[in-house]
Structures are given as structure tokens and as C-alpha cells.
């Protein structure tokens, strides 16, 4: 029993010490909401990549501006949907006011969101949607539609590599919903608009830049007549650009993709990449929190066609989607203006 006592004391002491140290998120105690602050819980697909770090910054900015919003930003460190579900359940229990989540899978997360709705928690999604009817989520803050993004990518490639170019796609995970949706749009659009453009291969380096790099290297060697590479994740794009640059093919092979200006800046500056397509993830996070608050106080309801979001001004609302806007293009001219 002496052993048990020691065990207990050590473990409890450890836990308390750690919790005291990590109390960054807490702010006013969760259970005792004296001032009536609206608790908004925002969850990324995963923590630990530039893109969502930028989303967090925007969310914090909006919470600060709005004043009466208490922001909780948390999520798993791996992009797996079953790691997201415990957060939803925990927040439901804590009766937060709104949950805003970027879903790793639209169906898997739906039951947990539905339960949250049943307990009176409002639910919106951003970046990656959940199944609308199964989850009962009210709005989806979309950065740009899948159509817009897919087309922008293909148009850009056609402009840089030619309409009959042989291209390769470097994606992320073979089961990633956003990437797969973009690829579907790209294939369809290519068949319509640029029938001579050909996809020679699609590779999946997961979220590992090293693999994106070596896969691109191998693509360049396996398909020597490839004219363009699509890097359609914030990890694949810099990896692919790096490989093209180190192979000495900057400017000869077009590299088009989606990533943050921060990751791509040096490639844009040296000409390996001409345009970076994205939207502003800081703005996305910002908008999401504004939408969250508006859903709570009734400012935003179904049927609206516009929504006023702080410094973003008026954004379009299409049915149950709030649109951040058209995809942004970062080029050598404007890339320095952005620090995300």
C-alpha cells in the first residue's frame, strides 16, 4: 500500500503541475461564466501546420475586436477525424455557445455535431464541411468553392505550361476530402476546357514535405516530358517547388499550387513559382469567428445574401455557405505584403 500511495501522490502532483503550466487556454474559468461572454470553440483539422496557425491568428483577432467573445482554439495534432470527435463531445458537455470545426471527414464527424445541436450548441463549419443534413450544422464558411479553386489552378497551369502540357499532381493523403474534391474538379475542367492537357500521375506524400520532395524528384525523372507540377497541399507545394529548383528546372517546369505565402516566398522570389493560389487563412479564421457570433445573436440567418464581417466588409452568402471570396493569387509583386 505504501507503493500505491507513492504512485498516487506522484501522478496527482504531476498532473496538477502540468495543468497549472498549460493553463494558457483557460482564461476565465470554464464552469463559472460570470460575465456573459460568448464561448466560441474553433477546431482546425490539425494543429501544427502554417495554414491553421494563420487561421488561429485570424480567429484571435476577431475575438479581440468583438470584445464579448471568449475563444477556445484546440484540436488534434494529427488530421484524423476520430481525434476530433472527443473535442466536440467535451465542448458539448461544457455547453460552449458555438462550435466551428474544419472537418477531417464530413460523415464521421456528423453524429457528434448532431448531438451537440441537440444539446443546444450551435454548430458551423469552415474550411472543410460536414455533411449538412446529418450534422445539422448551420453554416459553412467556405474560403472559395471547390470549383473556383480547381479552375484557378488549371487556368494558371494552362497559362504557364501551355494548354497541351503533360502535368503531374502531388497531393497529400489519398483519403483527404478537400484535395480529392479539387482533383475531381480539375479533371473535369481539364476535359472540358483543355482536352489536350494530360495528367500523367498523381502522388500522395501525406503531410510529409520530405516525401513530397522525393516524389517530385522521381516524377521529373520518370516523366521527362512533364511540363508542370501541381502541388495541392500546403506541404506538397513547397516540397515540389524545392525539388524542381534543386533539379535546376526553375522556370522550365511550371509549379502551381496552394500554400501559404510564408512557405512559398523564396520560391516565388527566385522564379521557380510564378503564382501561389490561396485565400487568406487569417481572414478565414477571422470570418469564422464573426459568423459564429452572428449566428448566436441572430444577425446572420438563412436567406441572407450578404454578411458584414468587421474589416472584411460585406461577404457573399450563398444559401448555407458564407464565402470568403475568390481565390487569391500571390505573385512576386504582392507576396511580401503578407506574413502568414
Amino acid at each position, binding site marked *: 500500500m505504501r507503493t500505491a500511495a507513492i504512485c498516487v501522490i506522484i501522478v496527482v502532483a504531476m498532473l496538477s503541475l502540468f495543468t497549472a503550466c*498549460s493553463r494558457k487556454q483557460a482564461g476565465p474559468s470554464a464552469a463559472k461564466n460570470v460575465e456573459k461572454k460568448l464561448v466560441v470553440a474553433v477546431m482546425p483539422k490539425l*494543429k*501544427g*501546420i*502554417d495554414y*491553421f*496557425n494563420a487561421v488561429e491568428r485570424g480567429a484571435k483577432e476577431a475575438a479581440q475586436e468583438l470584445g464579448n467573445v471568449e475563444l477556445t482554439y484546440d484540436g488534434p*495534432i494529427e488530421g484524423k477525424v476520430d481525434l476530433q470527435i472527443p473535442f466536440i463531445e467535451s465542448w458539448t458537455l461544457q455547453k460552449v455557445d458555438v462550435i466551428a470545426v474544419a472537418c477531417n471527414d464530413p460523415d464521421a464527424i456528423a453524429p457528434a455535431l448532431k448531438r451537440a445541436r441537440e444539446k443546444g450548441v450551435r454548430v458551423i463549419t469552415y474550411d472543410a464541411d460536414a455533411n449538412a443534413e446529418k450534422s445539422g450544422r448551420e453554416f459553412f464558411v467556405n474560403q472559395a468553392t471547390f470549383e473556383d479553386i480547381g479552375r484557378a489552378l488549371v487556368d494558371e497551369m494552362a497559362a504557364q505550361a501551355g494548354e497541351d502540357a503533360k502535368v503531374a499532381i502531388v497531393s497529400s493523403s*489519398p483519403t483527404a476530402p478537400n484535395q480529392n474534391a479539387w482533383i475531381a474538379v480539375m479533371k473535369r475542367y481539364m476535359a472540358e476546357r483543355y482536352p489536350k492537357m494530360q495528367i500523367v*500521375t*498523381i*502522388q*500522395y506524400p*501525406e*503531410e*510529409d*514535405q*520530405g516525401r513530397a*520532395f*522525393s*516524389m517530385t*524528384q*522521381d*516524377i521529373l*525523372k*520518370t516523366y*521527362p516530358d512533364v511540363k508542370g507540377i501541381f502541388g495541392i497541399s500546403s*506541404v506538397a507545394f*513547397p*516540397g515540389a517547388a*524545392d525539388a524542381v529548383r*534543386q533539379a535546376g528546372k526553375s522556370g522550365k517546369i511550371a509549379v502551381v499550387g496552394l500554400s501559404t505565402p*510564408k*512557405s512559398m*516566398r*523564396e*520560391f516565388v522570389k527566385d522564379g521557380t513559382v510564378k503564382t501561389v493560389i490561396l485565400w487568406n487563412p487569417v481572414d478565414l479564421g477571422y470570418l469564422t469567428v464573426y459568423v459564429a457570433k452572428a449566428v448566436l445573436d441572430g444577425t446572420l440567418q438563412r436567406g441572407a445574401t450578404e454578411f458584414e464581417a468587421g474589416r472584411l466588409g460585406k461577404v457573399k452568402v450563398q444559401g448555407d455557405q458564407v464565402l470568403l471570396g475568390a481565390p487569391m493569387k500571390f505573385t512576386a509583386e504582392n507576396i511580401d505584403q503578407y506574413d502568414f
Partner: protein
Amino acid sequence: MTSKQSPPLRLTIWRQYGREMSVGVFLLLLLGYFGSTPGFLRAENLRDILINAAPLVIAACGMTMVIVAGMIDISAGSALAVCAVVAGITAKAGAPLPLMLLLPMLTGAAIGAVNGWLVAWLRVPAIIVTLGMMSVLRGGIIWWTRGEWIGNLPPSFSAIGRGEVVGVPTPVVIALGVVLFVALLLARTPFGRHIYAVGGNPVAAARMGISVRRVLWLVFMLHGMLLGLSAVVYASRFSVIQSNAGIGFELLAISAVVVGGVNIFGGQGTVWGSALGALLLQVIGTGLIFRRVSEYWAPSVQGALVLLAVVTDALRTRRAGQ
């Protein structure tokens, strides 16, 4: 040896280096198979394969020592991430080259020292220590970096991964040096012999006067140090250091070592086999893309080939009548 005549030389070599030789043969077969696709056997591609394999080769050398000593380390990938981040921070702070190499290696050694202490003195089984450490390090690095990646690395840092030494790519030179170092350590020093002894039969080793604890602790520390070096070589090739780098790396390293014929029960195996194993994995990865194998089937082919290598080795050992 009870026979009057000593066995022919080639039989002795086969007995001693049979594993490594079979891996080598396997590698050559694969090269031949993939080589039938145009471009694979070009110097440029082979060079890339060697460079890409370098970090794995370095890590596999350390892992060889760990496995020969009868232990295991599944926290290697997380340790890689930590050391890579340290390397990035050091580089960005404008440190000179020696420091850029030294600090990550010291970090790795420190992690190894903790692992080693838990295993050697507290007698916690290695798989548990490293399983726990994996979570601690992975969570820790995200906590520390707040998930931020490290970009804008100075050219002096990138020179390590992308430079050359008398025409040979730096990573390859470093990897070769490490393999030689560990091979010599294991084969020709008392310490090396102690590692084999501890791995083969710790009780007997202790009775022979070997400080088992100290050997294990040093093995983990050396392994950690090599992980740090591997992290520098790995990270200096890219323009950005991810805080979630190295996921799955430990399993690759263990696969390389196992495919290379190192006995998981400890006490046998050489670092040459592990290096060949690491090369083999790299060749498979690249070769499958060259062969235009469906991207969906590529991972299973890789897994199947590892299984094949392991099974043939096991059968071969059985036939030789362990």
C-alpha cells in the same frame, strides 16, 4: 570444427556475411528490375537515391546498435523532429557550422541518455520507454514550436544537405563516414564486443564483468547522437523544417535494420546490412514511381517486399540450422 580440413573460404564468408550478401543480392535484383525502365539507372537518379537515403542510413546505424544490444527505439521519428527543429533554430540564430552540427547531436544524445537511463537503471522495458517518449517528444515539439514551421534557413545550413565534398554529395559522405565509424566500433572495439555480448546474453555478459547498465546507456546515447546528425542531414535539404517531421521514421529505420538481417533478439548483425537495407527501401520507393505502379498499390508493394526480405532471411537462417 572437428573436421580435419578447414572449410573452403567461400563457405566461411557465406556463414559470416550471408545475411548482408543476401540483402546485397536482393538489392541488385531490384536495381535490375527497376533498371529496365528508362532513366532509372542514370547517374542522376542513382545519386538522388543515395542522397535521399542518407538520413535513413545514418539513423539505421544507430538503430543497429540498439537492436544488437537487444533493445528497440520507437521514438526515433519524434526525436528526429526535435533535433531538426533545434537544428533550424541554431541555424537561424546565425551559429557557425560546427555548432549547427553539434547542438542537434547533443539534443539527440540527451534524449538518448534519458531513454537509456530509464531502460538501464530503472529497468523499464525499452519498448515502453520509447513508446511513452514518442508521445512526450511529439507533443512536446508541437507545444514548444506552437506548430510553427521554421523557414528562411541560411545558406550555410542548406549547404550541408545540398553541397558536395570533392564531387560527392555531402549527405552521402556523412552517411558513409557514419557507417564506417559504427562498423569499426562494433567490430573492432571492446565496447562493440560488449554490445554484442549484452544483446546476446545479458546475464552471461554481467558475469563476465561487463557493466550492462553502462553499455545500454551508452548505446542509447550514441543512437540519439546519430539521430541528431540524421536530422541535420535530413532538414538541411529542404527549405522549411516542419514541426511534424519524421512521422513513421522509426518504423522505416527498424525495417531497414531488420531487412538488413540484424537479429531482433540481439547479439547478431552488422551495420553494413542495415545500410543496405536502408538503400533497399529507398530504391523500392523510387522504383515504384518509375515503374508507374498505381499510387494506391505502391505502399502495399513496399510492405510486401519488406515481408519477403524478412521471410527469406528467416528461412535461410533456419536452413543453416541456427
